């Protein structure tokens, strides 16, 4: 049987210990331990969420701030381990969560392309081959040997986006990244995402821009306080979401 799903979430729960005081020293810890004052407040960021994402789907996640969108994405990409429940993903994942995480600002763009590439698990040979593509896409030819600390945030985002999308991953995770860069570059990014969608990549998008979700996504889930409020066709969910905000 061929598995049709790219991502399967089953009863996923994510709890955080919200200790009132942050204990960061041994002395404090033992004092509290002895006095039995180690209180934790359990905070449930994601509560019993289950859904499947089909292969080749473009899947949006909407919701207000703090509703568990980013936590859900982090669980899918394997950064966070859920407290309960299981996550299964099929295929390679390229996360575009907050671009530029793997950059060292003291290094030049050229060096950073190799560093960030290896953070995403690409081999040196692969980056050698794709180097020109990355530079062309980011349009940063003149600034390649300048330390990245002298770059503007838009320029950093260009390089980061170019590196992250140089492969065609099976699953692409996009978190609010299209907000940076000028409008021309934003168009370019959307074009690249669209071409990936045509290549049968599963795309998961989180965005506060409902228009963007409506334009790009086929299916959508609406999270509220860590729970699924609504799931289904992107336009219907977005409509309901927009109406609820009025």
């Amino acid at each position: 049987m061929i598995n049709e799903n790219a991502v399967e979430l089953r009863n996923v729960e994510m709890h955080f210990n919200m200790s009132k005081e942050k204990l960061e020293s041994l002395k404090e810890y033992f004092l509290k331990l002895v006095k039995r004052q180690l209180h934790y407040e359990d905070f449930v960021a994601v509560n019993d969420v289950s859904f499947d994402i089909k292969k080749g789907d473009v899947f949006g996640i909407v919701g207000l701030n703090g509703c568990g969108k980013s936590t859900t994405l982090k669980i899918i990409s394997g950064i966070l381990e859920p407290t309960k429940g299981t996550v299964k993903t099929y295929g390679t994942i390229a996360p575009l969560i907050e671009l530029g995480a793997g950059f060292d600002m003291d290094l030049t763009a050229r060096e950073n392309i190799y560093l960030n590439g290896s953070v995403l698990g690409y081999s040196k040979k692969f980056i050698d081959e794709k180097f020109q593509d990355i530079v062309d896409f980011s349009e940063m030819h003149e600034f390649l040997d300048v330390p990245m600390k002298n770059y503007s945030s838009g320029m950093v985002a260009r390089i980061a986006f170019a590196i992250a999308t140089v492969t065609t991953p099976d699953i692409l995770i996009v978190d609010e990244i299209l907000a940076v860069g000028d409008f021309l570059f934003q168009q370019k990014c959307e074009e690249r995402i669209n071409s990936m969608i045509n290549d049968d990549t599963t795309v998961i998008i989180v965005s506060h821009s409902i228009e963007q979700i409506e334009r790009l996504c086929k299916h959508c889930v609406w999270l509220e306080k860590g729970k699924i409020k609504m799931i289904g066709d992107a336009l219907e969910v977005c409509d309901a979401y927009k109406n609820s905000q009025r």
Partner: protein
Amino acid sequence: MSKDTLNKANFFSDMKKFMPLLKNLVSKDFKIKYRRSVLGVAWSVLNPLFTMLVITTVFGKLLKIEVDNFATYYIVGFAIWNFFSEATSSSLSSILSSAALIKKVYIPKYIFPLEKCLFSLVNFFFTLIAVVIVMLFQGFVPSITTILFPIPVIYCFVFVCGVSLFLSAATVYFRDIQHLYGVLLTILMYLTPIIYPLEILKDYKLVLRIVELNPITHYVEYFRGLVMYNHIPGLKENLICAGMAIGVFLIGALVFKKAQRKFILHI
């Protein structure tokens, strides 16, 4: 291809996938360390030489420690010690300082302490150049057994990795370790025969016992025996060295493995 993102079973495929990252991180550290300094990488050789000059003046000339070829004696021990102290104290905060990365991308976390250990190993080889310079300067002919020197270095590396894994994981939960460790290192340094020979402890049985329990003592003595005294340690000494290294490594790796699941909640 089906892959369970959270399964530890893909340890080896992870390892293969992130080898280039390990290499790039080491070369990044190397570039950043020497960028914009005039002498650049020569500092890796000069630093141990200067330290050696200070120590031989203070302990060799003023406090008159009785060892033949004291400068060589010292720098050979110093090379191993410096490797240990540099690797462990830099990996101590390696997880914390990589927080930005760990929070955003999936990377096997042991990469970070391991990278610091490898970087220190590279530095160790530069220190060896200083060792050779001092030996030549003292007119000291290295013994033929010197060619076996990778053996204690491998033992020491495994040991260092174990300590580093443990420390980097523990520091995530208890930041105090960062401040405490400097003091600990000083104590440990004096409990290792680097600036004195073991013989001066023969009247202090308790101290001698503690010094002999210190794994680094064994690596230093092993290394020194090969380089200076034409002495190949026997099976017993090898078993002690390997046993301590593997034991500490296993403990470190286990603690790290248990702790790493919750790193992200604490950094």
